[in-house]
């Protein structure tokens, strides 16, 4: 696989001190192997340039290690890449194989090519998602220094991280339940700080709206693909129609075939553009806005802890018991809260900058792509019309 293009969704500054990309990927039966390539001038690494092979589970391990690290509570943790999902595509290819007998050789070859192209597109996307994650980490002033990250990049053996077993998955599930219940409680706490109060309201609504837009754009693109598939099917039946007809009609039948193929391309391209520039963008910001929400949650949690610690200190002072303990506890909570608040503010500002830049880039590219394709289609259609109208 040729080196995929740099992550298109996110606008990141890269510098020479640490550059990470996925230079290669291999899709096997039930796993994908990513070749993570690093170029760095940092002294931490033994070499300036090196590569290792990683699987999806190892990315998740890295992400989770960030989330669980208390020191990183004040940062937006880059969202984990989604699991590579070729199931649907594989199923389609399998169905095609089973139905091989019921269609002509041309139909079969054509469908196979289409499905293989689809498989390749999904593959490229999953590579891009994993790459974006690593790039975000590498671009973050604090996270890039993380030791686990360096191990991930450099250690050329298997990290032996297994996927979570059933028990651990169940634990995660309960943790999330608790967290969302807690989140509701914590969200109710009004913040004295205007900036954070505004961010909280904004993010809550924004996240929901992005979720909706992402779902609707997926639906729209699926319809588009269905329509394109129909046109493809029409083209195949026209193909078989022409070969049986008398030569008089062959002229028109072959032009008809070309036209149908053109119609298919028109639809398929639009669907692909929308998918790339719109759907992926929305999906990514759905995850990022969730990560931002998580940050706010952690800060609110810390605030609640801080306020509780204050109350406990007052009580202790009133009873004159365990005052020192309460004081230490209160100081810790205060420190934690302030630390989080400070970095959170910057993180949220950066989030907005990134978001605006990414949307701008993708919307501009979407419009440019649509224009390019529409103009190309128009030319082809007009020349086809010219041939048909002039041909009597």
């Amino acid at each position, binding site marked *: 696989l040729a080196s995929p293009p740099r992550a298109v969704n996110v606008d990141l500054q890269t510098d020479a001190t640490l550059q990470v990309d996925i230079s290669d990927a291999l899709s096997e039966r039930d796993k994908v192997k990513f070749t993570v390539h690093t170029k760095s001038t940092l002294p931490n690494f033994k070499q300036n340039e090196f590569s290792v092979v990683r699987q999806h589970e190892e990315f998740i391990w890295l992400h989770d290690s960030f989330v669980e690290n208390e020191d990183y509570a004040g940062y937006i943790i880059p969202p984990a890449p989604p699991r590579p999902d070729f199931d649907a595509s594989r199923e389609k290819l399998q169905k095609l194989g089973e139905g091989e007998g019921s269609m002509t050789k041309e139909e079969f070859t054509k469908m196979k090519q289409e499905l293989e192209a689809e498989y390749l597109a999904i593959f490229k996307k999953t590579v891009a998602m994993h790459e974006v994650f690593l790039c975000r980490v590498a671009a973050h002033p604090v996270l890039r220094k993380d030791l686990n990250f360096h191990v991930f990049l450099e250690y050329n053996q298997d990290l032996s991280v297994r996927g979570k077993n059933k028990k651990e998955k169940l634990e995660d599930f309960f943790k999330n339940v608790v967290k969302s219940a807690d989140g509701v409680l914590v969200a109710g706490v009004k913040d004295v700080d205007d900036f954070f109060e505004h961010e909280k309201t904004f993010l809550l609504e924004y996240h929901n709206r*992005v979720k909706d837009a992402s779902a609707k754009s997926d639906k729209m693109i699926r319809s588009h693909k269905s329509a394109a598939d129909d046109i493809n099917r029409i083209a195949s039946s026209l193909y078989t129609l022409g070969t049986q007809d008398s030569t008089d009609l062959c002229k028109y039948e072959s032009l008809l075939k070309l036209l149908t193929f053109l119609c298919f391309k028109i639809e398929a391209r639009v669907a692909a553009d929308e998918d790339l520039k719109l759907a992926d963008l929305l999906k990514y910001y759905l995850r990022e806005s969730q990560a931002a929400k998580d940050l706010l949650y952690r800060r609110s949690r810390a605030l609640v802890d801080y306020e509780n610690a204050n109350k406990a200190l007052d009580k202790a002072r009133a009873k004159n018991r365990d005052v020192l303990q309460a004081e230490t506890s209160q100081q810790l909570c205060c420190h934690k809260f302030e630390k989080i608040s400070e970095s959170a503010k910057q993180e949220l500002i950066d989030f907005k900058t990134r978001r605006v830049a990414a949307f701008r880039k993708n919307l501009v590219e979407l419009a440019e792509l649509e224009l390019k394709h529409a103009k190309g289609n128009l030319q082809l259609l007009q020349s086809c019309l010219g041939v048909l109208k002039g041909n009597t």
Partner: protein
Amino acid sequence: MCLSSSEPASLPAEDISTNSNGPKQDLLFDEDPEDLFAEATEEVSLDSPERDLLLSDGPSPAITPITPPTSVITPCIGHSLLRIKFEQFQTCFLQIEEEEGGDLFDMNISVSDPEKVGDGMNAYMAYKVTTKTSMSVFKRTEFSVKRRFSDFLGLHSKLASKYLHVGYIVPPAPEKSIVGMTKVKVGKEDQSSNEFVEKRRSALERYLMRTVKHPVLLKDPDVLQFLESSDLPRAVSTQALSSAGLLRMVNKAADAVNKMTIKMNESDAWFEEKQQHFENLDVQLRKLHASVESLVCHRKELSVNTAQFAKSAAMLGNSEDHTALSRALSQLAEVEEKIDQLHQDQANADFYLFSELLGDYVRLITAVKGVFDHRMKTWQKWQDSQMLLQKKREAEAKLQFTNKPDKLQQAKDEIKELEGKVQQGERDFEQISKTIRKEVSRFEKDRVKDFKTIIIKYLESLVQTQQQLIKYWEAFLPEAKAIS
């Protein structure tokens, strides 16, 4: 001076009456004008009885036998002699073949203004049928009448009974739809019943145009009456659940069974090849029709989903707190809304242009196959007569040795009659074969023309769509770039 040919049959008027078995001879499509007009180089006087034959329209005013164009005849009032040269006839004949009876085919029929008449289950839709034409077979150049759906079915029924069995491909009428009509009768004024009426109106229009484009059907008195006369007797036997309707169904089933038992020795490879060709075409067109219907469905779905996405994008734009991005997202929502409209228009084009055309052709091919079946039946009839004749001859031979002069005479009479029948059977078979060849070639030409016209229309609609898309995205691009 008169035509040296003494056979008035060389220029017979076509015998068209409503109960006839169709034209006995199809001169319009004769491939050998020489046979007919070899003698026509002689001059014909204005007063000769042959001229009357030449110029008479026969029993039906609608049918024009082979005559030179009126420009040759009418100015000759001042001349004493009509000079009819073979070459003139030949050119005239060819012109007629192309120009359908003396004028260029210039006719446009539109079906419009659907109007509900009556109430409840007896209600029906009346359509206005407007004909605009410069053709001489019509009395006026523009006229309209009111017709209802059963009138169209009645027309088709009459034409089918007259022409199908002699090999003409009679365009099938639009399909009945009990569900569709009931909704209209009951008075449901919603989108689906409006769509149904529009679909039907369009189908009726196409049906009439196809019918009149057929050079023989155009001249049929039933067709002319349908288009011109303000009063038309109700075609009662077209009701789906009537006894006539049931009888039709029974006959159809019987036909199907009979067809299976006819084993014809096809001596003509052309027919075998064409029959196979139409079988294949039938299968392919049905498949194509199904695919196009699926496309129309998905396109409508796409339109709905695009509209939903547009709303969602607008909401997202509202909650976005960066002003320029917020505005751009709202603009995106507007673009998507406009694109949704384009999708709807495209779905309509897919439907009206292609799906309906394919449906028409699936039904037409059934009519074509029917005509081939009639040929088989004609052959069978001929064969049966021949076999019967054979039997009678054998019986006669046996009777020779008995002393029964009456019975012998009877047998001889029967044989004579049967010989006539056999000859007629053979003539019928040859005639229908000839007609079918001609019809098939006309059908194929029309098919190419039809599809070509539709493809051009469809392409033009696609061109429009792309042009609109360019407009929308060009307007959007600066908004997207303005985000900072």
